């Protein structure tokens, strides 16, 4: 009998019941909640007179709507300027209080972007099923967990039943073998992969990242990659368990301790795809081929290398892509054949659930140290992913490095990733951003987003245009 993939194992371990129609009832170990997609779920419970099935499986924190300036943060919820944002944050607090769910509220040091907070607290553990009403829940798969985003009615379903009705997906392995060059980060690897397989490349699959290059990556880098599995069409991204995983998890507040730690470790060792596991599809990537990446268009697959150019219509694979290119040139204000290093930046955003962890901030600070943000850049923001990341960075003096270089040092939250709070791009502005989506209007109406790694974003802030971070 053929071996099993990591996904097969995680799936099997969570099946409560198979149904006749090919779906299965899957048990959920952890649900993360935030203010945008949970209010109607809680109200649904109230209307039906139901209670959460298991309180301790839930953890909540507000992130999408919270302001990131300390001035606005100081006055608490009442200080949130936008009325819809204020109501959503307030409602999350009220719902968590009413139902008895643990919440890291806005003023709590542990507050932050759910996908940063979960792993940081050890609330995301290997072997778990993790869900959240947010598509970037794929992030947590970096821990050899089965994690995916769900809709509001499913949030309610999980609250009430601790289960989800699911259909098993196909197995896709992205194997990156070889050694990554100096200065190449998880962000570059995943953008390169999306460039190769396209934004629909992972449709209907659970995407596992494997190979020697992935094994050498830190947990932060693996999270960055799994985070963007969704941009390659897969709801689930995963990396098998190894020593790097256990090192990261050990000692975190929600992680098992003592005897239970040993027991957990023994169980987690099996959370890898068997050598003879059969995948429905395998994509092989050579680590040596990967250079620093920059997206030029309005979809994450419209990506090229720092020494590259905006592609011409002749580079388009087909008619659909050709018209996509045309529309993207216009929206982005770029001309075919233009050098990437000639793109000038108006703003720079270092943050989001993709790249706002301590390692990301260190990489950016390394570049920023002793340098100055170019005068032509209107704003360069650094938004840590959580209160604890912020505290850690401050303990290391990174905040000073950023401030001295002319960056703004903010409070934790989603911020300019999706512009639900006051941090936004103006129309026509180009932004070097460490987030995950460069869709039209994502960072503000008419805003032009270029996705890059934290080091590349910091380098772009200093130069005022894109530069190769390896040549600094």
């Amino acid at each position: 009998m053929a071996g099993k993939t990591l996904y097969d194992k995680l799936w099997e371990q969570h099946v409560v019941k198979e149904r006749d129609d090919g779906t299965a009832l899957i048990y959920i170990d952890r649900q993360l909640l935030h203010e945008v997609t949970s209010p109607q779920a809680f109200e649904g419970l109230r209307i039906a007179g139901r209670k959460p099935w298991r309180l301790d499986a839930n953890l909540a924190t507000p992130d999408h709507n919270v302001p990131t300036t300390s001035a606005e943060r100081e006055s608490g919820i009442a200080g949130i300027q936008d009325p819809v944002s204020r109501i959503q944050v307030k409602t999350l607090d009220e719902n968590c209080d009413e139902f008895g769910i643990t919440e890291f509220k806005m003023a709590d040091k542990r507050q932050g972007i759910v996908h940063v907070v979960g792993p940081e607290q050890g609330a995301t553990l290997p072997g778990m099923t993790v869900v959240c009403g947010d598509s970037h829940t794929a992030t947590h798969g970096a821990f050899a967990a089965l994690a995916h985003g769900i809709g509001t009615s499913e949030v309610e379903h999980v609250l009430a039943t601790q289960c989800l009705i699911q259909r098993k997906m196909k197995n896709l392995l992205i194997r990156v073998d070889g050694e990554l060059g100096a200065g190449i980060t998880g962000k570059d690897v995943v953008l390169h992969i999306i460039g190769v397989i396209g934004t629909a490349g992972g449709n209907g699959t659970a995407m596992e990242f494997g190979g020697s290059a992935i094994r050498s990556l830190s947990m932060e880098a693996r999270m960055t990659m799994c985070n963007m599995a969704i941009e390659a069409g897969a709801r689930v991204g995963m990396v098998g368990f190894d020593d790097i995983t256990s090192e990261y998890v050990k000692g975190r507040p929600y992680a098992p301790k003592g005897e239970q730690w040993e027991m957990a470790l023994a169980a987690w060792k099996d959370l890898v795809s068997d050598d003879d596991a059969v995948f429905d599809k395998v994509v092989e990537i050579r680590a040596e081929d990967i250079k620093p990446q920059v997206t030029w268009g309005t979809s994450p697959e419209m990506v090229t290398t720092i020494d590259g150019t905006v592609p011409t219509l002749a580079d388009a694979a087909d008619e659909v892509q050709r018209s996509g290119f045309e529309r993207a040139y216009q929206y982005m204000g770029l001309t075919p054949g233009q050098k990437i290093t000639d793109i000038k930046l108006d703003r720079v955003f270092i943050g989001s659930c993709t790249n706002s962890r301590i390692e990301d901030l260190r990489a950016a600070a390394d570049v920023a140290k002793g340098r100055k943000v170019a005068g032509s850049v209107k704003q360069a923001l650094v938004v840590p992913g959580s209160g604890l990341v912020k505290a850690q960075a401050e303990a290391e003096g990174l905040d000073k490095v950023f401030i001295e270089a002319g960056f703004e040092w903010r409070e934790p939250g989603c911020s300019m990733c999706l512009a639900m709070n006051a941090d936004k791009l103006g129309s026509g502005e180009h932004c070097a951003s460490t987030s995950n989506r460069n869709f039209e209007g994502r960072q503000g109406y008419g805003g032009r987003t270029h996705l890059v790694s934290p080091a590349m974003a910091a380098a772009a802030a200093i130069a005022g245009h894109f530069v190769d971070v390896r040549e600094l």
Partner: protein
Amino acid sequence: MKPFTVHKGIAAPMDRANIDTDMIIPKQFLKSIKRSGFGPNLFDELRYLDEGQPDADNSGRPLNPDFVLNQPRYQGASVLLARENFGCGSSREHAPWALEDFGFRAIIAPSYADIFFNNSFKNGLLPIVLDDATVDRLFKAVAANEGYELTIDLAQQKVITPDGEEIPFEVDAFRKHCLLNGLDDIGLTLQDADDIRAYEQNRRQQAPWLFGA
């Protein structure tokens, strides 16, 4: 979810094809954090003469006297008579929420948009499909008789008119079962509560660290 067995109520006619979800509940109300309370804004643009705002008091707003649901004879209506392709447009579940919150329990139309049709069942609202000619006949009967009430017997799959005519309709057996018993998706899953508990007990033994304080 409220079970649906036999329902009797005044029928109100929406004599217009392709009523879309934006007409049912305009997009400014989607910002709400609620799933109840949409009733006062059902058909907002047709029903009022001014523009509706979320979370505002609707009681003092100028009503459009020509709109059918504002007419005294249709007050308290709970069966909506509609034309083809009712509920087209977006997938917003706010549309059945608004109809239900207003007080509708059933809709009768020749056809529906797919997603709306599904969402209605999930929210205890019964969308009945009858052929064009029958629907047309009902429109005429409603217009001619003030206080025209229809009885809907889901178990028997019949619409019964005031003069005793019985009109049969089709409904998917599984959906019928859910509606009759008031089972939404959650209710259905909870029928397997014993399986969930058994699984949980087993998991607690194998992975006790997943079960915190």
